[in-house]
């Protein structure tokens, strides 16, 4: 035995492959957190014009981020409460939760009042400020009315601390007083006609998108929920939170990966067994493909640090393109018969493979230029995968396929291929293509387009329904449409926001924003002035000198209305108190949950309830520093832009491919080789039109692949034909084999649950189908050498 260079190279390649495999295993499983990314937001491109807006979108999406928000419902109030308590307790035992809130910690009402006392003269509702400024405001009359309100007893600030009720009114507008959930039996509860709903919030000890955290937390919840429902029949638990969305996305993608991966593997296996009539080629083809996929996974994780779900699904389909290279080599071996010599085989397929690889890489490299994280990952994945699969054919396979194949390609398959090739390569076929182009025109005319975000993100309807129900009952849940307020300084941001929120109040649009809790310095100064003026106004001749006087006036009004002198003294002494500052706001624990609304250079104002985005725009119209952020619309616009970009790209790529072909085949030859993929694209688009499928970005992405794969087929046929002159139809049989394997993998994406992938798959199904059938056009018809 001579130690052939083939063997050495193969040994080296195998060694490197093993190292890469080991690296892949370590990357995937060896480190604590799984690199599999399930966050749908992460794969969306940045759409907003500035970083602040992107930050705002992110903050809002994460506001309910690493928490499970659960509402325990039961017709029977006690059962609902017991169930919630038990659920909270059960979840609290699991370490995957950092904190579970079901029963409220003890607190005093005073904690929601006393911290505000020093600022009470600076915090007024718009109504109180307007009332104070109105002519004829009578402080004594106001006090009298307040003291004699029906059922007068009031809870909140002590009467002497807030004789006019200004602070009380202010506090009534604070978020914790607006919630429909009220503390009852130490639980936050809402009552509806169909029963009681009790809130349980479980904060995760980790990220919602962390695979391990996700599984453990959902497992713990399912178990606890099951037990609670068994113990309290009729209970049901409504759930929302990023973790459920992430888990749903993961489950969908995993299902898709399994369906596409398993179905295509089995399909390809059966096909290869039938065509090569031997196990060995099958194993070889899978080995080459598997190396490609492993190399691709490792490269993607090394480049991006993670692997997105969408990439993984796409990767499962990519199997079908990677297997082409080994199929070409295996066909060459089958056709060579006993005269097989591995290195001559490599030399024979090398030009076709390299040309095919070059066109594919060119295509994917262009895809990598799109500023869309998910597409970039797919491009890197594809480039690495294709290159490795191709390299394995050159360097590893020759060593594994040293002996000649023991059987030529299955005769029936070759006969079918030859028959079609004869039909499709004649002159008549050009006429047929011409007619088909005419038929395609109405399809093109019918074609619409769709850039909706739901192509990418389509959470399960039941989860959406639960989220909406929780928003109805409990009043929370972040939206993706909001106002962004910007300014050079915190004060500017607050003033800009007040201009907006004053308008919203006038329009009757409910909102949550920082100025509802922290008025601007200017507004606070205005509040203080309004209080001063109202108290001084009825002092003839003293206008303008309202310094010490307002204290005395406040005191005298209170005494006139019936307050004790000591209470009046204390109130007057507290005047004017301090302005409420940003730091004060940040320090108050009850405001903690709302801190995400504040970004120093900007703030977020969220509409409450369903507010039409046009109405939101109208409300922001003409206000400095205020804009409406509508993430779904931004994404749709972006999809539209990319769709336009992708069409241009397709044209440019065609020119590049045409140039490459012209260089190798001359102008006349290039035209023939380019015709199949070109016609394939034209016909698939027309078919989409006839199927009433609006064109999306994802259809266009698929067309890019059709161009790449279609060009491969034409090249394989054109290059392979001279080498298989002794077995007519064998070259085309190889192409058909590639096409069917591609259909078995990419085409199966049409079964995906995600609309984007489904469109992708359907387009490939059509495009590859047409191209493969038209491929014979690229080479002259084989002469009939058989008898």
């Amino acid at each position, binding site marked *: 035995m001579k130690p052939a260079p083939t063997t050495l190279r193969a040994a080296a390649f195998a060694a490197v492959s093993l190292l890469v495999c080991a690296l892949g295993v370590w990357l995937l499983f060896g480190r604590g957190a799984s690199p599999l990314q399930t966050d749908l937001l992460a794969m969306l491109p940045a759409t907003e014009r500035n970083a602040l807006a992107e930050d705002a979108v992110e903050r809002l999406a994460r506001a309910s981020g690493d928490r499970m928000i659960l509402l325990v419902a039961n017709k029977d109030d006690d059962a609902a409460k017991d169930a919630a308590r038990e659920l909270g307790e059960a979840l609290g035992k699991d370490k995957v939760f950092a904190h579970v809130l079901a029963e409220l910690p003890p607190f005093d009402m005073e904690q929601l009042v006393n911290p505000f006392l020093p600022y009470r003269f600076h915090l007024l509702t718009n109504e109180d400020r307007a009332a104070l400024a109105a002519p004829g405001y009578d402080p004594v009359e106001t006090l009298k009315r307040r003291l004699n309100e029906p059922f007068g007893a009031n809870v909140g600030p*002590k009467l*002497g601390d807030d004789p006019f*009720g200004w602070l009380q009114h202010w506090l009534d507008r604070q978020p914790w007083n607006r919630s429909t959930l009220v503390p009852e039996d130490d639980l936050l509860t809402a009552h509806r006609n169909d029963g009681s709903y009790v809130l349980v919030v479980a904060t995760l000890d980790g990220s919602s998108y962390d695979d391990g955290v996700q599984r453990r937390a959902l497992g713990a919840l399912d178990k606890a929920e099951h037990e609670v429902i068994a113990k309290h029949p009729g209970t049901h638990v409504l759930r929302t939170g990023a973790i459920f969305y992430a888990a749903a996305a993961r489950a969908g993608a995993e299902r898709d990966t399994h369906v596409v991966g398993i179905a295509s593997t089995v399909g390809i296996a059966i096909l290869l067994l039938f065509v090569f009539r031997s196990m060995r080629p099958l194993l070889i083809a899978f080995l080459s493909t598997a190396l490609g996929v492993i190399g691709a996974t490792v490269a993607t994780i090394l480049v991006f640090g993670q692997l997105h779900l969408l990439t993984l699904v796409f990767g499962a389909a990519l199997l079908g393109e990677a297997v082409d290279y080994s199929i070409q080599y295996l066909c060459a071996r089958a056709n060579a018969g006993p005269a097989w010599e591995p290195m001559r085989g490599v030399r024979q397929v090398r030009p076709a493979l390299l040309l095919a690889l070059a066109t594919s890489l060119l295509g994917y490299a262009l895809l990598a230029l799109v500023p869309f994280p998910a597409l970039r990952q797919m491009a890197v994945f594809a480039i690495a995968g294709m290159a490795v699969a191709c390299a394995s054919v050159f360097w590893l396979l020759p060593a594994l396929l040293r002996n000649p194949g023991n059987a030529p390609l299955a005769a029936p398959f070759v006969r079918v291929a030859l028959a079609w090739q004869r039909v499709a390569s004649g002159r008549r076929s050009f006429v047929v293509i011409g007619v088909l182009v005419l038929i395609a025109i109405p399809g093109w005319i019918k074609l619409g387009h769709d850039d909706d975000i739901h192509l990418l993100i389509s959470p399960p309807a039941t989860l959406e329904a639960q989220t909406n129900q929780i928003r109805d009952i409990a009043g929370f849940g972040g939206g993706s449409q909001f106002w962004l307020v910007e300014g050079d300084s915190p004060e500017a941001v607050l003033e800009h926001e007040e201009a907006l929120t004053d308008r919203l109040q006038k329009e009757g649009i409910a909102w949550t924003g920082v100025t509802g809790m922290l008025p601007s310095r200017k507004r606070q100064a205005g509040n203080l002035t309004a209080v001063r003026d109202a108290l001084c106004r009825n002092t003839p001749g003293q206008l303008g000198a309202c310094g010490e006087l307002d204290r005395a006036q406040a005191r005298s009004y209170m005494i006139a209305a019936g307050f004790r002198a000591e209470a009046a003294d204390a109130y007057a002494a507290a005047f004017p108190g301090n302005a409420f500052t940003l730091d004060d706001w940040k320090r108050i624990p009850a405001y903690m949950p709302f801190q995400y609304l504040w970004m120093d250079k900007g703030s977020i104002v969220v509409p409450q309830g369903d507010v039409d985005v046009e109405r939101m725009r109208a409300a922001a119209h003409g206000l400095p520093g205020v804009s409406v952020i509508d993430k779904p619309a931004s994404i749709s616009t972006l999809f539209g832009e990319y769709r336009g970009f992708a069409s241009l790209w397709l044209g440019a790529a065609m020119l590049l491919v045409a140039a490459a072909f012209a260089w190798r085949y001359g102008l006349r030859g290039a035209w023939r080789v380019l015709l199949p993929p070109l016609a394939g694209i034209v016909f698939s688009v027309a078919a989409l039109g006839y199927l009433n499928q609006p064109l999306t970005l994802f259809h266009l992405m698929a067309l890019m692949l059709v161009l790449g794969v279609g060009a491969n087929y034409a090249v394989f046929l054109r290059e392979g034909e001279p080498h298989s002159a002794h077995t007519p139809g064998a070259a085309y049989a190889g192409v058909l084999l590639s096409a069917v394997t591609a259909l078995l993998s990419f085409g199966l994406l049409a079964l995906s649950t995600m609309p984007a992938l489904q469109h992708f798959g359907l387009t490939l199904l059509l495009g590859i189908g047409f191209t493969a059938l038209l491929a014979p056009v690229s080479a002259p018809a084989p002469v009939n050498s058989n008898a």
Partner: protein
Amino acid sequence: MRRLIALLALLCCTTLAYAQTAPAAAPTLVDDVLTHLAKHQRVRAEFTQRRENPDLAEPQVSTGDLLFVIGKGMMWHTRAPYEDTLVLTGGDTRRLNAQGKLERVRDGNRGVSQVSGMLQGLLAGKTDEAARQFTITAEGSVDNWTLHFVPKQARVARVLAGITLKGDAFLESIDVNLASGERTAISFANTREAGALSPVEASALGAE
């Protein structure tokens, strides 16, 4: 929290099929009293409200009259020390102005508007709310009774000491004691069937 006080409204003027929520035992005095009160669908009365608070030099006293219509709401007409008419329906408080028009009171005492909100709920049969919040005990007889409402929940009890209602065929008085020492006592006199409503009353309460 303030809605607890709301409970009063319901009781001051009547109805409530309390029996639904009471333990399924023989009718108690509480049930009897409430059943009796519920017989009067529209009631008028004169009220005197007296409010005591540690910060007040002397109790505040107001007087006026009141109309209550089950299922609609109430008009609280203060005659002294000032003239004012509040209309409490559903969840809102409105003021009848000098021109006889209703204006929404935006910054009204939330407690007051919740009184009516809760009241409407209770009248619609959601009596369990009262039972959830209070331990209710009764003394005396159907002709001369006293009901005590003590908050069940510690958080509430720290603020609200208790509510006492007294009456005969009609409600005679409501006493609200806060833990802070504040006390509001409302007494009713000349309680009677309302008879026909004036056009202003009918339109304010949305009754025919």
